[in-house]
């Protein structure tokens, strides 16, 4: 096995490089099945983290897990980002939180799985973190089932109204709020 290249923080200045127009818009415009996942990223003092970058990866509504190219589709003449073509479901989203630490993702429900995978990057975070947004608790999910209720709750999105889910990420517990469950796949 080759030794891996170490991770380093994304730093504060990725903003002119990584986010792209439409990064938060996985759902084709006007799709009636679309849903919104939104929330805040917080640090261990409970303060919003204004410079986190979130990436989302999920199954297509038909359950396909292959994704599709074209998330950053570009105009070959000007180089400008055209964004997704509105037909293919790429399965990939990228959102930089705003100055309040808030993000909002508009996507379609994942097929065959109750969750959307999340990868968290931030200044001060030396190695990215994985978590999952569960849109519901199917009762037999092995990860959810393995967690005590307080911990499990950090992975469950809270329905706010029809098609709108709240999902906050806490990089560290602040003494009042539970720290988000982060995952290890290695």
């Amino acid at each position, binding site marked *: *096995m*080759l*030794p*891996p*290249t*170490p*991770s*380093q*923080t994304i*730093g*504060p*200045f990725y*903003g*002119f*490089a*990584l986010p792209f127009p439409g990064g938060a818009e996985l759902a084709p415009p006007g799709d009636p099945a679309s849903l919104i996942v939104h929330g805040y990223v917080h*640090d*261990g003092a409970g303060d919003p983290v204004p410079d986190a970058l979130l990436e989302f*990866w*999920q*199954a297509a509504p038909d359950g396909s*897990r*292959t*994704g*599709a*190219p*074209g*998330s*950053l*589709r*570009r105009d*070959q003449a000007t*180089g400008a980002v055209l964004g997704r073509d509105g037909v293919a479901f*790429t*399965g990939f989203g990228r959102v930089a939180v705003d100055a309040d630490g808030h993000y909002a993702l508009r996507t379609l429900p*994942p097929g065959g*799985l109750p*969750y959307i*995978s999340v990868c968290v990057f*931030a200044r*001060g*975070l*030396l*190695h*990215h*973190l*994985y978590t999952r947004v569960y849109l519901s608790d199917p009762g037999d999910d*092995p*990860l959810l089932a393995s967690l005590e209720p307080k911990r499990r709750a950090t992975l469950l999105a809270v329905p706010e109204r029809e098609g709108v889910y709240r999902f906050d990420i806490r*990089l*560290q*517990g602040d003494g009042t709020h539970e*720290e*988000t*469950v*982060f*995952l*290890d*796949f*290695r």
Partner: protein
Amino acid sequence: MSPPTQETINAEICELRDAYAKAVAGGAPRRDHPDRDYPPYRSSVLRHPKRPLVAVRDPEAMELTGPVFGTTDVTELDSDLTRQHVGEPLGERITVTGRVLDRDGRPVRGQLVEIWQANAAGRYAHRREQHPAPLDPNFTGVGRCLTDDEGRYHFTTIKPGPYPWGNHTNAWRPAHIHFSLFGTAFTQRLVTQMYFPGDPLFPYDPILQSVTDEAARRRLVAEYVHDLSVPEYSLGYRWDIVLDGPCATWMEKGR
């Protein structure tokens, strides 16, 4: 509270490095990645989880697959950061090339590589950047490309300058290029930084030193390769990247 001095940071770096060396000597496994809890890098203090990560060993996990990109996601000029404006940027023109591999040594093909960096004066084209070094109207510092069938990437750019930051008094980042990489699985995602050989700022930088394993730290430093230099044009660096994390080989076979 006044910011810590470089001496304070150096002492903390040494203490953590010694503790790591002692742990390894006592049989603890080597650590390839930085510890997320690394106090010499002050911003890490409130931004790392205190609870252990929860291991997922589910062969059906979505994270064992990953996003894909294609020819529509990049344009030809994206990999040449010196040709994105009307004029040529100031600075030392370089090329950076290497291969993206998984831990089994297999090339990561057709995947997206993104880079971003400061200009030759050590200034980012970012509004929150406070360093009073000149912006270069001919340099943005953003590039991307897809890896080829051998996992190879290639960028033409200029060598970024070192720059000061607020971690402690007289804190300077060694020159570096930020890299963002995708593997065949979401679990292989990597964001990291490539450094230049022989930089005198290495021992003072808590971000690089957060990789407490010396051999692992060396893997973040590119190699100057004279054969990659182009006569009368550019200096060549090579930096190979190995992505960590499992992937769904069981799915690849079906692709």
